[in-house]
């Protein structure tokens, strides 16, 4: 695995350095580097696990790198004059230095540095295929973005440096087994996401980036504490040793609980959601990256990786409640929003909640469902963010109420976005197979499954109304012209939309390779009849298009306006009133603000979530 592991970790960092100064050459270098990373990722997942023990020199190198990252974060804490960032990072600095001074014997011993099991392979594939696709999209997008912003001096060097550095850090994190490597990858992703969120440098960006850094430093402190308990007290230096340790011991459970809380912060679960919601001030590729294959997935990845460690414990049961609760509340909050990116953000947090719930349910079916959800959510969400970014550039707004009639103006992006939405919530697509599996697995825990049932119904509301808006017409049957899209923008959209559909057909294969990996147990996801329903869907689509084409020749009319004449035009809806005057009218959706008021519901549910997390830590006490 030697060269390909370097291809996914070290190469992105080198590419980042080159891209920082590449100037106009970036147009070619970004797609080229993206291709190299994707090929390395694909070759890495075909390989067997190779034991790799750390040498003293290597471990010292990792330690110094981690120190450097934390000191850099500390520097930002001082620069932003934020006490919390300073405290959390100083504490981390103190703990790891103390651990190295007292527990020096642990350095470089005990177990493999890296892990390459099916879970790590799934994450590697997502990072090295979806990540580079987003970077390619960014090449064309950032030019337009900076033009629209009227930027005099391009900041793209910094931007692409951070994007690729981020990918390297993520790859390191998901292949890391030794706590030192986990911590290094963890801190690199915290650092890069902080810098990327603050990319625009305006007041709002700096504020939101600061929030992100506070919350993720808090999570980092929990990670460091958990690792400290494991390394210094239990004398185990890798995750694989920790998850096989004796569950009866309080210290083992405490270490696991601390690491799980760290995972919850990065996965933006309640009450830690605010940093991810604020992250959308950054240019779209950043949101696409944070929400799909990186960052938040690191959080659920860690929780899933630890799952065998807390199987059949009370901690696991409470974790299921934490995830289910986040799924329910954030699905409701998504309904109250009309800002497209905010809807997507809440939906991300909700789906991560579902994955956390699966980790808590902790049965083979639940863990399989979690992997399904990770894969299909990454694909669909990356696609949706890229679509909304493209729409925003052209439309000037990300409000879903302004997207009426989008299919007439931007048919290509509208159809891509439609595919993104449909694959999120309707069968026969993989997300729903994952959701059904999650529900079946949780059925033995009524309190959890009730929350999932209600949350699932809530998600219908915001997807359906949004999909209905973009696939609506204002002109009737006028000719629709294809919009002009840059190849580097349309290519990632086409590939992601295609992947969302094709991967759903491969669920049997994914189950064998990514979930069980050994032997051949028939996939329990087969009962969701993905193949047959796909067949019916294909027939229905063909029949629908046939009838629609036939209908084109039939009599067309304007919508019913209570006797008045509908005014055919684009953008505004109006009818012709007395004296031939046009009168504009407006239609809009329900947001159920009286029930799901964002501020009030957030406050209340944050308090409940803090209580649940406190209970999760409380149940491990003897």
């Amino acid at each position, binding site marked *: 695995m030697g060269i390909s592991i370097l291809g996914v970790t070290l190469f992105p960092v080198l590419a980042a350095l080159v891209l920082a100064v590449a100037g106009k050459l970036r147009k070619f270098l970004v797609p080229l580097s993206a291709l190299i990373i994707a090929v390395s990722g694909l070759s890495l997942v075909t390989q067997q696990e190779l034991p790799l023990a750390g040498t003293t020199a290597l471990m010292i190198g990792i330690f110094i790198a981690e120190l450097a990252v934390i000191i850099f974060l500390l520097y930002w804490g001082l620069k932003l004059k934020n006490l919390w960032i300073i405290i959390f990072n100083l504490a981390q600095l103190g703990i790891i230095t103390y651990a190295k001074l007292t527990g020096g014997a642990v350095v470089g011993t005990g177990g493999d540095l890296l892990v390459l099991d099916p879970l790590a392979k799934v994450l590697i594939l997502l990072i090295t295929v979806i990540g580079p696709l987003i970077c390619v999209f960014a090449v064309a997008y950032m030019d337009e973005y900076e033009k629209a912003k009227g930027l005099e001096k391009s900041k793209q060097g910094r931007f692409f440096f951070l994007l690729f550095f981020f990918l390297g850090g993520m790859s390191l994190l998901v292949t890391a087994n030794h706590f030192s490597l986990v911590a290094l990858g963890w801190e690199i992703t915290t650092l890069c996401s902080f810098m990327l969120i603050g990319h625009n440098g305006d007041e709002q960006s700096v504020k939101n980036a600061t929030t992100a850094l506070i919350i993720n430093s808090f999570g980092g402190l929990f990670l460091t504490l958990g690792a400290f308990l494991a390394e210094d007290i239990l004398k185990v230096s890798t995750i694989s040793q920790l998850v096989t340790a004796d569950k009866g011991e309080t210290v083992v459970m405490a270490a696991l609980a601390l690491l799980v809380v760290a995972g919850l912060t990065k996965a933006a679960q309640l009450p830690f959601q605010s940093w991810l919601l604020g992250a959308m001030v950054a240019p779209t590729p950043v949101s696409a990256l944070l929400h799909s294959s990186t960052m938040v997935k690191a959080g659920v990845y860690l929780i899933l990786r630890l799952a065998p460690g807390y199987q059949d414990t009370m901690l696991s049961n409470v974790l299921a409640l934490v995830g289910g609760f986040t799924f329910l509340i954030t699905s409701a909050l998504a309904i109250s929003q009309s800002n497209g990116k905010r809807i997507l953000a809440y939906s991300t947090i909700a789906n991560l909640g579902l994955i956390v719930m699966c980790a808590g349910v902790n049965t083979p079916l639940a863990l399989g469902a979690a992997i399904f959800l990770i894969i299909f959510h990454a694909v669909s969400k990356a696609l949706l963010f890229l679509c909304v970014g493209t729409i925003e550039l052209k439309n000037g707004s990300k409000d879903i109420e302004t997207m009426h009639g989008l299919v007439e103006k931007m048919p290509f992006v509208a159809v891509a976005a439609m595919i993104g939405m449909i694959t999120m919530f*309707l*069968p026969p697509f993989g997300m729903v197979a994952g959701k059904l599996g999650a529900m079946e697995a949780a059925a033995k825990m009524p309190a959890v499954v*009730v929350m999932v049932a209600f949350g699932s119904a*809530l998600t219908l509301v915001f997807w359906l109304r949004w999909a209905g808006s973009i696939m609506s017409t204002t002109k009737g049957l006028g000719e629709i012209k294809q919009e002009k899209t840059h190849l580097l923008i349309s290519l990632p959209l086409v590939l992601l939309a295609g992947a969302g559909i094709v991967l759903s057909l491969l669920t049997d294969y994914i189950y064998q390779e990514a979930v069980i990996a050994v032997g051949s147990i028939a996939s329990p996801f087969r009962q969701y009849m993905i193949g047959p329903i796909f067949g019916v869907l294909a027939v229905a689509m063909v029949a629908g298009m046939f009838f*629609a084409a036939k209908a084109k020749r039939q009599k067309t009319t304007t919508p019913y306006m209570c006797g008045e004449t509908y005014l055919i035009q684009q953008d505004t809806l109006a009818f012709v009133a007395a004296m031939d005057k046009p009168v504009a009218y407006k*239609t809009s959706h329900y947001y159920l603000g009286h029930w799901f008021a964002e501020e009030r519901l957030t406050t209340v549910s944050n308090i409940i979530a803090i209580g649940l997390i406190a209970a999760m830590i409380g149940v491990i006490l003897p």
Partner: protein
Amino acid sequence: MMEVVLIILGTILLAPLAGGLLTGVDRIITARMQGRQGPPLLQPFYDLIKLWRKEAQITNTLQVFYAVIYLVFAVLSLVLFVLGQNLLLIIFVLTIGSGAMVLGALSTPSPYSQIGANREILQMLAYDPILLITAVALYLVTGSFKLSEVVAYQTASGQPLLFVLPLVFLTMTYVLTIKMRKSPFDISASHHAHQEIVRGITTEYSGPYLALLEIAHWFEVVLVLGLVAIFWANSWLMALILVGAVFLLELLLDNITARLTYRWMLQSTWVVGMGLAVLNIAYLYLA
């Protein structure tokens, strides 16, 4: 294999007949409750033929596309039901059909159809979680989400689920009123207004395409009554009696209640529905 094909064909042919006849019975009984004579039993079929032969008028082609998707998936959810498949899956497949209907209504700029569609979304929000929880309750008793195994469980134990899950049954019947477009929940489109031009979600549909929606609705009515039958699946006779009783009850309810607001609908289904279902499940745990 042959048997499965026959079952599928039988469902596709017989279900709309049953749905149409039920609608005919519905219209006669409703008329008698209102002191009218009512139309002949086959009137729904005559209406359908009339619609089918009318000139097609559309505002855009997307409407037509979504109407076809709605019909196909209404058929598919019933077929999956008859084949005894996973109940959770059936509920989600049903969502594809209802979702397509909503998208079809949202695709036109008509304010009537848009309001209807948004109300339909709220109706889905009201019944969807209760149906999912019903499925979970069936699972907790029988140990399976597969309908064939749910039926087998009752045949083996000889005890109908109605006796084990009476409150869940009550809740499910209550929310199925929404799916049947009956008062007090006929918020997005009323069954009574089947001849009106402005009928909420179907406002912009006319002629043959309205006929497609009508047929799809018949499939859904049969599925709804099928879900009722699941609660006494160990005896054909009792299942039929149960279905007949629920059907009559829905008609009575339809004729003695007035349409209520969506807020009331959501609050009553969510709070009361969930409360009863949870009470029933809790009882199962304790007993």
